[in-house]
């Protein structure tokens, strides 16, 4: 069985060992190998490669979409930010104007109130002065009566004296310019 005769007994091209049986076996062997590799290797691996390629393509497309969305969102955010900033500026400027108006209004009101208070104070002072003058006048009349009584040592009717004094004072005031 395990003998080892050399096959190249022939001469010429036959010495190379061309053998139809071996040739057929090699052909069948290659065909079987190609077929088995096709079903157990090529088909599986190529399917996986295709699937991976599809996944990668989809992922890249998705990434592009996300990037575009992100850019859009960023632009939208920037727009909203600008609008907000502008609105803020407007509100701020309006608030400033309102504050200015309020300040002026308050200042005006304070000025008005201060004027009114001043006027009231003047009225009160005037009234106080008039009252004081009235009081002084009354006291002076009594004092004059008392003084006259002492000087002339006689009793006079008090009402008559007072009328007399008032008359004198009125004359004097009119003569002195209301001092």
């Amino acid at each position, binding site marked *: *069985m*395990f*003998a*080892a*005769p*050399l*096959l*190249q007994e022939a001469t010429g091209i036959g*010495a*190379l*060992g*061309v*053998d139809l*049986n*071996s*040739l057929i*076996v*090699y*052909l069948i*062997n*290659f*065909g*079987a*190998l*190609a077929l*088995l*590799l*096709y079903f*157990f*290797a*090529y088909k*599986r*691996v*190529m*399917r*996986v*490669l295709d*699937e*991976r390629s599809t*996944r990668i393509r989809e992922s890249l497309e998705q990434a592009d979409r996300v990037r575009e969305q992100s850019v859009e969102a960023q632009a939208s955010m920037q727009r909203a930010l600008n609008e907000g900033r502008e609105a803020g500026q407007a509100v701020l400027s309006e608030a400033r104007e309102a504050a200015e108006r309020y300040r002026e209004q308050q200042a005006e009101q304070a000025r008005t109130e201060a004027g009114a208070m001043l006027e009231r104070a003047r009225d009160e002072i005037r009234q106080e002065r008039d009252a004081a003058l009235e009081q002084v006048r009354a006291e002076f009349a009594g004092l004059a009566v008392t003084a006259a009584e002492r000087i002339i040592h006689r009793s006079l009717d008090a009402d008559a004296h007072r009328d007399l004094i008032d008359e004198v004072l009125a004359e004097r005031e009119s003569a002195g310019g209301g001092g």
Partner: protein
Amino acid sequence: MIRALLPKLPIALVAGLAVAGLALGAIGAALLGNEPFIRVPEVHLAPQEVFTIGGFTVTNTLLSAWLTTVVVLLIFGLGSRKAALVPGRMQGAIEMLFEALYGFIKGVVGERYGRAFFPILATMFIFVAFNAWMALLPIYPTVGFKADGADYVTTHLLRSAGTDINLPLALAIISFVFVEVWGFKAQRFGYLKEFFRFRNPIDFFVGVLEIVSHLIRLVSFTFRLFGNMVAGEIILVMITFLLVFMAPIAFYLLEILVGGVQALIFMGLTLVFAFMAVAPHGADHEETHAP
């Protein structure tokens, strides 16, 4: 002292082996007047018979082809068994090879024909390359049977199938049939017009030349692969005979390269011929890629 010399040990080992190889090899033996360490190799162009089954002779190259087939099926079948979307190392390596081969094929003939051609062309590359690379294993030149009375291996159990002319011839026939079938499939009867031209005598002669050029591919394919594989084997045997150690390593590396290159050439030429066959006649310079 020993620690200082330790890094130089590999260099010393290599140098020692090289010197020993030179001394033990045929060159050193001739110079020193000794018998060479390895006996003079014999070159058998034809494969050797290992055993017979029902009158069919099983040769060492045929065994080698079967072994390569089994190994290739195990590697590629098991490696792509799970075929997961996230590949493991083995699947990754297989994918890398398939992608490289498919990219090469697609680059020449385009997507449509690339898909169709891939299984046959990839099998050609894988079988030729693995067959050549496996033949570099030490088991190939050492394990075998001794003839009665011989004190050395007279019949090797395994021998690179590429060195058996029947394998390159079988691959050449497959390549030829593949090209012609695809040419006919793509162009129908228009493909035959390339060979059978009757407009004038010169055109007729061109047709005959075309037939001859297609048939001659069988011879060129066969002897290119056969010659390279046999030459590689002979070089390895002879260099081992002459210098025994170290020097053969360089030639082993060269043979690894040669195996891959020959596989690529076989596949590449078949691909180019197939492309020429499927491309519409006269459009070779216009449309270089199939749709």
